[in-house]
């Protein structure tokens, strides 16, 4: 089990740890870094114990910090930097880093390799724990990248990066709005992988256009990496063939809309979601915070609510606001209202850890066995 949770919020990076005393376990606040600063994403890299935290300083841009001592101290390191925009380019996208939106480790046999997804849509790779970053030009320079658009933010962004545990050259990314893309050769070539998805927010003849798909979150089962789940703008989709084809999971209760998704690391049929009413009304259905869990690949769902607020609650869970630990039993969920909950039993019941945090962008477990 992971006894530590890192919470990236609008106003700091918070550290919570599970403390046991007298047979009773509770989650306690264990520290805060970057208080007052917007932390957009955090990565505890379980390969070597390094913790990475991305800031988005309102005035002074995106910054990346790294800790070698488990989060006690951080040092500022390089951020991905876009190349000079060619003169006469017809690309309306600003070639300038606006947000670090996803940060993931490379394979277990690729020490120090990191992937970073950004707004306005560039994917970057670092070979050396963030000392240097290289734009993945094979994706950025594709002419059809210009079809990507912003959704919520002014410009498109890569929010999900799935590195195949069997082969780290196989990387899938989720783009809002730009669909799902896959490389099988470490980023040299890419192809869209959204066959079967559809978008209800574009004209009918564009419904199945790959770059029109808005996967709010793309996740992959570690033990069965051919299985992916997507919480899409208009519902849930699942793939059991390595993202070659997708099938809609219709009628997820209590609603189809949402951002967050998590899948059990060992059971590809189990996944969790945090539904909200609709695109136009981004609050819990009937003011009740729930988690929708399937254990049969999406054929049926349990609506889990024990320990979650069940009246006049307006918490929204962002796409990185739900995480599961390496056992698949413990979950953590954080909301835009600053509420943080942990479940020890796959979501059957939840313990409220805080209701007073700043708006939560992302939550991550840090493994007990991590170095440092």
């Amino acid at each position, binding site marked *: 089990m992971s006894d530590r949770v890192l919470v990236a919020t609008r106003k700091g990076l918070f550290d919570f740890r599970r403390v046991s005393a007298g047979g009773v376990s509770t989650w306690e606040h264990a520290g805060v870094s970057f208080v007052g600063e917007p932390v957009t994403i955090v990565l505890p890299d379980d390969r070597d114990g390094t913790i990475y935290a991305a800031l988005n*300083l309102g*005035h002074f*841009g995106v910054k990346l910090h790294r800790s070698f001592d488990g989060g006690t101290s951080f040092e500022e390191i390089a951020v991905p930097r876009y190349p000079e*925009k060619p003169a006469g380019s017809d690309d309306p996208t600003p070639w300038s880093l606006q947000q670090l939106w996803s940060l993931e480790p490379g394979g277990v046999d690729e020490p120090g390799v990191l992937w970073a997804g950004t707004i306005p849509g560039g994917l970057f790779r670092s070979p050396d724990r963030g000392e240097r970053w290289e734009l993945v030009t094979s994706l950025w320079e594709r002419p059809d990248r210009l079809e990507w658009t912003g959704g919520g933010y002014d410009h498109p962004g890569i929010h999900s990066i799935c590195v195949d545990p069997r082969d780290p050259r196989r990387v899938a990314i989720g783009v809002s709005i730009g669909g799902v893309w896959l490389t099988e050769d470490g980023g040299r070539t890419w192809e869209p992988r959204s066959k079967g998805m559809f978008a209800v927010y574009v004209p009918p003849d564009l419904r199945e256009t790959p770059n029109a798909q808005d996967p709010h979150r793309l996740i992959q089962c570690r033990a069965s990496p051919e299985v992916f789940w997507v919480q899409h703008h208009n519902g849930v989709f699942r793939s059991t063939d390595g993202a070659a084809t997708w099938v809609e999971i219709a009628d997820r209760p209590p609603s189809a809309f949402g951002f967050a998704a998590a899948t059990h690391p060992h059971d590809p049929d189990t996944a969790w979601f945090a539904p909200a009413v609709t695109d136009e009304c981004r609050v819990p259905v009937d003011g009740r915070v729930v988690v929708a869990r399937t254990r049969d690949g999406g054929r049926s769902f349990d609506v889990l609510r024990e320990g979650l607020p069940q009246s006049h609650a307006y918490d929204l869970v962002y796409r990185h606001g739900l995480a599961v630990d390496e056992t698949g039993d413990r979950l953590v969920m954080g909301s835009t209202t600053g509420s943080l909950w942990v479940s020890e039993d796959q979501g059957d019941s939840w313990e409220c850890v805080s209701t007073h945090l700043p708006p939560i962008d992302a939550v991550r477990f840090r493994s007990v066995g991590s170095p440092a």
Partner: protein
Amino acid sequence: MANIQFTPSLRRHLGVSTIEVPGGTVRSVLDALFETDARLRGYILDDQGALRKHVAVFVDGRRIANRTDLSDRVRDASEVYVLQALSGG
């Protein structure tokens, strides 16, 4: 020498203090500044070398006119302020 002063919020991140550099243009003044601490570039300019959207530079009491080319003149006796524009919540 032109005198550059910084908003306290920038001093908070980087610990910079007032500095003096030769006049010229805003670009040349900032380039001289970045030679003292390369990290400053990423705080003041964006990836394309333009002034960040929410950063303001004043020369002798006037907000600079050219935020992209940074071609406004800076005299040797100029007072340059690197400030933050007000935004956010």
